[in-house]
């Protein structure tokens, strides 16, 4: 009996050693780090966004690796500076894939810059691009086989802003936007939304050269149009410049902007001039840690990236990376480009704890379509209602 028990225990031990407590991928014996990559503007005029986003992603991967990684493997997230330049982005893509063997691009920054790298990354190297900070409706309709996103489209954000301004009873709305097509297309989506929802509302388009620093002539132009509300589709630095100049000129209107500008930098740089600004956020507010997912994020930022505030931008990149890793964790077998794509396509109602549930399928590569409205009051972003989509009634 005793010998039988010992034999059974030995068999059980062998079984446990071989399989028990390990994922199928881990059982393949590969313990090398999983290499992922991203490009971000870490220098130049848009660095304010890239630095915050890098900190959020870096905090997530440090948190993940300290908790055992995924399938028992550490994850290395290589971030290259693209200085918000398409040519540098292509060079960064070559380095990430050719030299650093990244099997996926995760949480990269920029619509136009990422699009510049499509030809090499998606077509030539056949590497998936997952969860870019940015994106365009043409990216996902029809879906590109290796391209996945969870950021609510800027056009949809703009439609929500347009509905919000109309709900606030504004009748003369100026849309101030940077002149590159990526910004102009967003502005047009808002203009179309206003015209279709309320044909009697007057919509005015004000295009501004990208990276303008002197906003005095722009504000004079807006003042001359006599709007009662202004929607800004500009970079954070330009939103700050507009807000300061509008306050200086005494131009009082309702003011709205989209999710990329919901950040601590707007509060820090524009101060009281930004008070009342209505905006949007991809995630739950980082200063409310009642949600467990937000608490993990804030604690990780304090522990691993103490020099950077736990902000909306860093929280979004945390979420972008977390969704990618959630897909990797579902893989049974070899972790490579193909298995990551299959895992993403089978992801349904994944709850990251900081943003709405994510669902992908073979025909749906954009996993999210809702946004959280927020308002800057007394130097703090506060929630307005719950998550809404472009087709929601506010």
């Amino acid at each position, binding site marked *: 009996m005793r010998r039988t028990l010992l034999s059974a225990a030995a068999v059980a031990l062998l079984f446990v050693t071989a399989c028990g407590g390990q994922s199928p991928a881990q059982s393949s014996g590969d313990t090398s780090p999983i290499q992922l990559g991203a490009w971000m503007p*870490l*220098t*130049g*005029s848009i*660095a*304010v966004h890239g*630095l915050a986003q890098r900190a959020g992603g870096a905090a997530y991967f440090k948190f993940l690796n300290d908790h055992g990684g995924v399938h028992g493997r550490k994850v290395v997230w290589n971030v290259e500076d693209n200085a918000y330049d398409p040519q540098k982005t292509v060079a960064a893509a070559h380095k990430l894939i050719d030299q650093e063997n990244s099997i996926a691009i995760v949480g990269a920054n920029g619509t136009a810059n990422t699009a510049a790298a499509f030809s090499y990354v998606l077509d030539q190297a056949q590497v998936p691009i997952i969860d870019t900070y940015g994106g365009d409706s043409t990216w996902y309709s029809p879906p590109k086989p290796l391209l996945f996103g969870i950021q609510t489209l800027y056009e949809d954000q703009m439609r929500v802003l347009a509905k919000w301004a109309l709900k606030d009873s504004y009748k003369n709305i100026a849309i101030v936007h940077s*002149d590159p097509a990526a910004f102009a297309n967003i502005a047009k989506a808002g203009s179309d939304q206003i015209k279709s929802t309320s044909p009697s509302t007057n919509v005015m388009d*004000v*295009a*501004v*050269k990208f*990276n*303008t*620093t*002197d906003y*005095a*002539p*722009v504000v*004079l*132009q807006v003042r*001359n149009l006599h709007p009662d509300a202004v929607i800004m589709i500009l970079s954070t*630095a330009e939103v*700050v*410049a507009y807000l*300061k100049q509008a306050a*200086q*000129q*005494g131009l009082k209107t309702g003011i709205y902007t989209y999710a990329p500008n919901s950040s601590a*930098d707007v509060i*820090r*740089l524009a*101060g009281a001039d930004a008070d009342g600004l209505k905006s949007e956020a991809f995630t739950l507010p980082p200063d409310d840690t009642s949600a467990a997912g937000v608490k993990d994020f804030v604690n990780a930022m304090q522990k691993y990236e103490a020099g950077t505030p736990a902000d909306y931008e860093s929280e979004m990149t945390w979420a972008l990376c977390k969704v990618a890793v959630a897909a990797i964790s579902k893989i049974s077998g070899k972790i490579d480009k193909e298995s990551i794509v299959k895992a993403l396509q089978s992801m349904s109602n994944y709850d990251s704890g900081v943003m709405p549930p994510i669902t992908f399928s073979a025909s749906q590569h954009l996993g999210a379509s809702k946004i959280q409205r927020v308002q800057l009051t007394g130097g703090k972003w506060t929630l307005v209602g719950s998550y809404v989509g472009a087709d929601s009634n506010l």
Partner: protein
Amino acid sequence: MNELPAVLVSGVVSGATYALLGLGIVIIFRSTDVVNFAIGDFGTFGVYVAFALLTRGLPLLIAAIAAVGVAGLLGVATERAVVRPLGPGKTFAALVLTLALSLILVSLAGQLFGHQPEPFPALVPGHVAILGLVVAWQKIATAALAVVAMAVIAFFMRFTRLGVAMRAAAEDHYAARVVGINRGLVAAIAWFIGCALAGLAALLLAPDATLTVTLMVAPLFRAFAGVFLGGLESMIGAAVGGFAIGVLDDLAGRYVSASFRDTFVFAIIVLVLFLRPAGLLAAQHRQRV
């Protein structure tokens, strides 16, 4: 068109920064034959030093003096360590070196001080309404300083022994040496004054544009336009050109198209240079060949 006076005022105050920078560019060029593309970054670096001093509790005035001084000293160090070893006549090599130095300084400032934009306090607080435009006193001070600097430097170059020596050194290095002019000292002073003016321009611009490592990139672009418009060898021309660029820029932004303001401004400059290649206010040199 009822906003024309306000747009003109806005243009003049914006142009003051370009005028100060342009003046700095021309002083260095006229004294040492070097077009300094790093001049704006010297100014930015100086303001970052001032910002570091402010965060350590030093008074704004001390920090401001430090900013101007650091920018000037960076200029002197560059002239001594980078430009002078090239020897006279190496105009193109010096130009490329200053371009490289500009990139290095931007990167260095980012590493030392971070790439996050920082708020910088105004030296002169408050606002005033002029012809329908609310203008910060800071910007009026910038415009006044640009005019004063232009007058002082014009006086200095024309009526002081050192100023005449600087002009002579620029005209003919060897002849200046023969008559006992210390070319090294003249070059050092020119680089100090030129880069200190850039430091002043950056200091006055930072509160409005927020402090970033690329603070002076766009203004430098326009300052050069002003210099070419006024004439690379004319100090008054460079300053007037800077003001003109500010006004043209704002006129184009308001009445033509905000997204084509650069195109409009530079189209005018091309036209002017086509008619007067040496610039509007530069002396016309004609040689019989």
